[in-house]
């Protein structure tokens, strides 16, 4: 859970977004929103997976 929280914060931290932004500017601007939604979905999947994992453990 801790790892996931750090990962989630990192994925949406401004410096990383700025880097992605820079890349996106070079390769097509829509990449930034695509990245954001993809990362978002990834986090949701990871939370879901972690939660079901926790449930097993309990």
């Amino acid at each position, binding site marked *: 859970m801790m790892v996931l929280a750090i990962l989630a*914060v990192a994925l*949406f931290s*401004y410096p990383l977004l700025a880097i992605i932004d820079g890349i996106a500017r070079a390769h097509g601007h*829509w990449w*930034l*929103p695509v990245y954001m*939604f993809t990362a*978002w979905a990834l986090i949701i999947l990871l*939370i879901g997976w972690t939660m079901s994992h926790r449930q097993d453990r309990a």
Partner: protein
Amino acid sequence: MLPVWLVAVASFIYLGTLFAVASFGDRRADAGRSVIGNPVVYTLSLAVYCSAWTYYGSVGVAATTGLAFLPIYLGPTLAALLFPFLLLKVLRITKTYGITSIADFLAARYGKSGLVGGLVTVVAAVGGIPYISLQLKAVAASVTVVMGDATPFAPAFSLGADTALTVTLVLAIFAIFFGARHVDVTETHQGMVLAIAFESVVKLLAFVVAGSFITYGIFDGFGDIAGRAMADERVRELFTMSGTGLSYIDWFLLTMLSGMMMLVLPRQFQVAVLENVDENHLRTASWLFPAYLLVINVFVMPVALAGLLLDGGEEGVNAADLLILRLPMDAGQEILALVTYLGGLSAATAMVIVATVALSTMVSNDLVLPVLLRRGGRHRGSHGDAGERPALTGLILNIRRATILVLLMAGYLFFKHVSGGLGLASTGLIAFAAVAQFAPAIIAAIYWRDANRTGAVLGISGGFLIWLYTLICPMLARAGAIDDGFLVEGLFGVGMLRPEALFALEGLNPVSHALVWSLSLNLLLLVTASLLGRQDNIERVQALMFVEVESSHETARLWHGQARVGDLCDLMIRFIGPGGVNRVLDIDGQRRGRRLGARDTADAEFVLLVERQLARVIGSSSARVMVASVVDGEGIGPDQVMEILDETSQVIEYSQRLEQKSKALEAATAELREANARLTELDGLKDEFIATVSHELRTPLTSIRSFSEILLDTPELPEEERSAFLAIVVRESERLTRLINDVLDLSKIEAGRMDWQMAEIDLREVIDEALDAASALFTEGGIAVETRLRLSRASIVGDRDRLVQLIVNLLANAVKFVPGENGRVCVELFDHANGWYEVRVDDNGPGVPRDFRRAIFEKFRQASEGPKERPKGTGLGLTISRHIVEAFGGRIWVETSDLGGASFRFTLRHMPAAGHSGETEPRAAE
């Protein structure tokens, strides 16, 4: 363009449906078949987060500042990671202590403080006004759009006052009917939760349908929109970070702010915490809720871009806010527009319903009632007293209704006169920033035990004032309500105090700016005041109960004050008794090497020991308060003690009942143990008896078998030896027979199956017969027999044969013990007093040792006077004799005879017909 009647009818049908759903939920809850006991319904109810702001406002943000709408949803996603920790703890505290609102939560934590509750209520209500205003504005604007006014807000809010006011009043009436149906706030509003979940489905479907139509109907999918957007330099900028207009700090603060909202927003607290029926739902919600947010946001960018591409994006944020509705309208899809409108209506009504329920509960319970009832610091315990007074029900309902009306009217006035020019999202963020002031106090409430009331009050009010100054005042100034000179020059002309660039902090989004200052001041005040100040006792108890809600309260805490040992002991005596107090003093004495006296000053360790002892009886929190009442400098009012005692008396009563029960159990256990011991003993006796009988049987058998085999195997045996051996075999056989007879007799007698042949007999004759039977023994041993039968006739009722057996037994017994030479036996019969005969069989043997006189009548207990002398006999004779005497009501015992040996004596009752009367058995002279 849709006719007014259609919009109105559709709206009312929709609102009616909500009522139906809610009452269905309530009925199911009453029937005990709750429909909200489902993690999906719970998650959908959390989606009340997505109000008209999301529904209309996100598009507006996206159309002007691109991805800036996202932090509002990323924040909750990150916060969802904390659901199983933070929210779970809040949930447990709330359930454990019967909390009814976020104000109640903070008030309870900070010493059941009415001040805290009232302050939180005021802040939440004031902060809620902009939020409600944006819903009203959105609904009013959407009504205008579907009715065909293409420029609802242009140039400076030209919407007919009638429409907006109508919307406000309709929503107010709806909320009053919907939200204030029940009085008891400790009950969950199951119907409401179901309706909210239903609304979440409606708004999601409506938004997705409209978004899909715009993306795939008007345009040719995501790619098409993106491609066309890329072609436009200005629109393309919206894809980038710089397009958001947000700095790093803005981005971070907005994400954090919206994450906090999951907990501190009164309506989120309502659905996420108060209406939660099963804490396991948090698990599902922690991923399903972010997923809901994701889905409802997928079409935000495309719709915004589509609007810009079609309209040229000239109209500013107010127009962009309604793109999701306007695009279908412009495309002539009026039915779709109506559906979209209903989706927006559902988003707004959901927010209004929950927000007003939450706020009106807070206003009535935490603001108005405490004042009305003059209940001061003890306005509400965990018992929900407010709801328990029937006389107050009507009053409470009216307070709530009035609150709802006032809130909505305030919202109306706010958007009409203050925030008309602001986008929906900006208005919402202002509301966020207000309630964000609760966050430090809440986090501290559950994790920091030293956080105190002063800190919470100062923190929240300080932050709130900054919020007013940095966000609301500028708005009011711009709206012309107050002089706007201070915006540019700073308050009192001090440039450092410019509200939108406080202390020269510039370059931030206004909300971020307000957040930085308000939260910093808030935290600073909370921490400083908590570290410097002290908690009173109620507060300390509550703090402990909140922070330690999931564990036992056994925590070491040093007491600041001073107390005398005697006072503490007096306190303890009332709960654990003098014995308990002595034990405590002993324990303490052992540790410190010296027993404290009553006049000694108690140190912290001793106080803690006392507290723990008391905690075992009355629970830790009460113990803490009781001890505090004695420790100087830990002042506590008499009413507080009374309150605690009221609560603890129940606990004490309960523990007393428990104690009684455990005593009864102990007694039963002891009885059982005793019975078991008796059984074991009996079992052992039986075992011993069998072993002894076995031995007694095997011994003669051994001789018989041995000699028989010897005789068989030794034909050459001399005649003399042969007959000697045969004689042994015969004697042992007789012995065996006697033994078997005795054992059979005994077991018959003991089992009560002896067949007594009762008849009138003469005891003299019995004695004569016994002497005859035993004469061979006397002759054989050369024993002189004497008889002294002083009666001519002694009639009794008994079994002749058994009595003969009895006397023969006694004679045989005497024969065994008399010396080999000059053995003497004397039989005596005389009339005892009171209708009893007594028979004595005396001998001149060694006698029976005094200690042994009772035991010889027991089975196999033979008196042997020397190691070499083993009396012959079965060891059962005297036992059988005793049973026979007792069967006829007599008594048998042994004394020292005149001849120097043993004197066996027994008594038998005269035959009643003989005229003798005797009821009591004579006592033998000892």
